């Protein structure tokens, strides 16, 4: 059967089944994922045919494990490609960051220079912006846990959540929750200090 002629139901039926239909569906899906990943990563450093082949094989396993989560609200191929891209990106991030320690990224995990940095970088910055940053610095020190400060700093320094999680013995979703809770706490505390989201947007709009 031609890939283009498979609708979502047939993909699910064939992939979830056995025998020649399943083998044909797997071969077609592999070919489509490779085509999509080639396009998505053609200009990426360190990406070659072997890398893409490995990523697609890993993605196929994950897709088969999660077939039950496909709700049919998109084309099956789009859903599967999103999973393959996550698998490939995760591996690329792991390779890029594998020799970088969390300590190296965040140094002494201190937000103290935040006020100074802003002041030095922009001596003529408005008073509103400066006082907002001073308030934020105090809130960070008083209301965030050490773990939240560490994760937030590492994220600001560009370390992927998966890598932060690896160093903290956690996972990407848990790190996301950690930093989301931190952001909520900072937003609520800034609002309590009289700064609304609109004020923040105006003061720090690019």
């Amino acid at each position: 059967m031609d890939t283009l002629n498979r609708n979502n139901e047939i993909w699910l039926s064939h992939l979830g089944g056995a025998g020649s239909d399943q083998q044909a569906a797997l071969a077609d899906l592999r070919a489509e994922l490779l085509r999509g990943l080639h396009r998505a990563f053609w200009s990426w450093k360190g990406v070659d045919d072997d890398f893409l082949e490995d990523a697609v094989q890993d993605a196929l396993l994950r897709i088969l494990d999660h077939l039950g989560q496909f709700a049919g609200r998109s084309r099956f191929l789009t859903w599967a490609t999103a999973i393959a891209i996550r698998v490939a990106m995760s591996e690329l991030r792991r390779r890029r960051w594998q020799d970088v320690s969390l300590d190296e990224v965040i140094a002494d995990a201190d937000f103290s220079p935040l006020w100074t940095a802003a002041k030095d970088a922009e001596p003529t910055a408005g008073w509103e912006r400066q006082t907002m940053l001073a308030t934020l610095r105090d809130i960070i020190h008083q209301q965030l846990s050490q773990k939240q400060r560490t994760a937030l700093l590492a994220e600001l320094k560009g370390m992927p959540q998966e890598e932060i999680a690896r160093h903290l013995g956690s996972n990407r979703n848990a790190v996301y929750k950690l930093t989301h809770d931190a952001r909520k706490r900072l937003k609520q505390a800034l609002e309590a200090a009289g700064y609304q989201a609109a004020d923040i947007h105006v003061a720090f709009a690019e």
Partner: protein
Amino acid sequence: MLLSRKEIDSLMKLIGLTQDVELNCEQCLYLIAEFAERELAGKTLPAGLQAVEQHLSVCAECREEYEALQQALRELSA
């Protein structure tokens, strides 16, 4: 350790965009395909998918993956 001006601006932007309830990366992954197809077709987003848009605004990694997905979809729809 000094935060750069860009990092400070990123932090403030993230705080400004933060919602009480947000999707996590796993939840985003299983909704992103529908989101991508609707965006590609220029369709309006139903309420359930606006949470994907919000997640992409605060999660650099999911945003990077979404951009790659858009590239792949252009190939697959060609």
